[in-house]
């Protein structure tokens, strides 16, 4: 038995564990996004929150994640099967300015007809001020108290469609009502495969925080100049429209 004990001890010493993920940031984001807990009083943190470990850095240590297998495998793990995250050195200048290029403006009823899928809406934001449809991609535009826009985009998660995001700042995992999602900080651009196989660039999105998650066969994106916790709170309010 002593030799067995020694062998187990040696095996433990030689065990190669997977790297421990950074949990503190996602835990904090989740706590902040949840309704105030009656059992633990919330107090504002002192100073700026430390920057969270970038998800991309975990898998690539920076640089360009050009290999589709790396990003897609990681995102599949996250439950974001329709998305691929790629890190690039620099964004195209055209992706940071200009019009929002969200497509053709519609009424809600018109958007429902044009979309061809059941639309969702963040209940916490009320009715959208403007609605755009671009080849089946539906974007609701809201106005925040600051006057800045909030975008809620719904992309059908059909097999022939994917989204490629270029991320230049931290990315972290979040939970949205039990679903896995990604919080992308800072400027980004989105490439969409239009129906028929052509790739189209949605050039001018907001250089803001973006929350991305999947639900009901849709890839959902919520983009705004809002803190992560507020974005998650809004995302948790998404309901069938």
């Amino acid at each position: 038995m002593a030799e067995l004990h020694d062998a187990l001890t040696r095996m433990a010493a030689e065990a190669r564990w997977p790297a421990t993920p950074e949990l503190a940031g996602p835990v904090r984001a989740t706590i902040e996004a949840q309704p105030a807990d009656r059992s633990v009083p919330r107090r504002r943190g002192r100073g700026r929150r430390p920057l969270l470990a970038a998800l991309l850095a975990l898998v690539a240590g920076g640089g360009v994640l050009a290999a589709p297998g790396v990003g897609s495998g990681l995102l599949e793990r996250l439950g974001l099967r329709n998305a691929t995250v790629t890190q690039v050195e620099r964004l195209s200048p055209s992706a940071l300015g200009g019009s929002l290029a969200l497509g053709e403006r519609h009424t809600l009823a018109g958007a429902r007809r044009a979309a061809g899928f059941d639309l969702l809406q963040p209940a916490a934001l009320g009715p959208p001020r403007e609605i755009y449809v671009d080849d089946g991609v539906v974007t609701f535009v809201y106005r925040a108290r600051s006057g800045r826009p909030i975008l809620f985009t719904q992309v059908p998660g059909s097999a022939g469609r994917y989204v490629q995001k270029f991320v230049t700042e931290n990315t972290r995992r979040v939970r949205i009502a039990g679903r896995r999602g990604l919080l992308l900080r800072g400027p980004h651009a989105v490439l969409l495969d239009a129906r028929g196989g052509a790739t189209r660039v949605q050039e001018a999105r907001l250089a803001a925080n973006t929350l991305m998650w999947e639900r009901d066969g849709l890839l959902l994106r919520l983009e705004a100049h809002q803190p992560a916790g507020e974005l998650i709170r809004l995302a948790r309010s998404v309901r069938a429209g």
Partner: protein
Amino acid sequence: MVHPPPPTEAVLLSRARGGDLDAYEQLVRLHQQIAFRTALVLTRDAAEAEEAAQDAFVKAWRALRRFDRSRPFRPWLLAIVANEARNRRRSAGRRELLAVRAGGEPTAAKAAGSPEGALLVAERDASLAAALERLDERDREVIACRYLLELSEAETAAALGCRAGTVKSRLSRALERLRAQPEIGALDG
């Protein structure tokens, strides 16, 4: 420049119970490795383990007021982690095996004292890994908690959801069954 010593776990706990999220973040960092690894032992899936650990920390935050400060924090936390991990178990066919190397490591060679000895050690460890895989879940988990995770009896009891007094007997029976495996009979004989 002299830096103040980092706050102790007791101080962080006290602050966190008062609603200090900064303190709780530090507590999470202190315990995230053992939480993740415990969840990994129980789920055998790294992604599931990460989520289980993350959700456990969130639940622990919400339950902090109920934590008995006269007791150590880690077993209490591990009980929550283990509960989350068990809820996330997937079918056995989809689980990844723990990345336990079965030999050829420097420590094995050093222990053996020669290349031939190292080879022998490697073969023994491979046999041990195979034998462990054939044990049932309960036996494998108690061995993993005590040897792989190096948890105390109290922590093992918390992780496995049993009384501390039963850990020793459960481990003893698990080791007996491990020893009864054909490969181990040769190893331990």
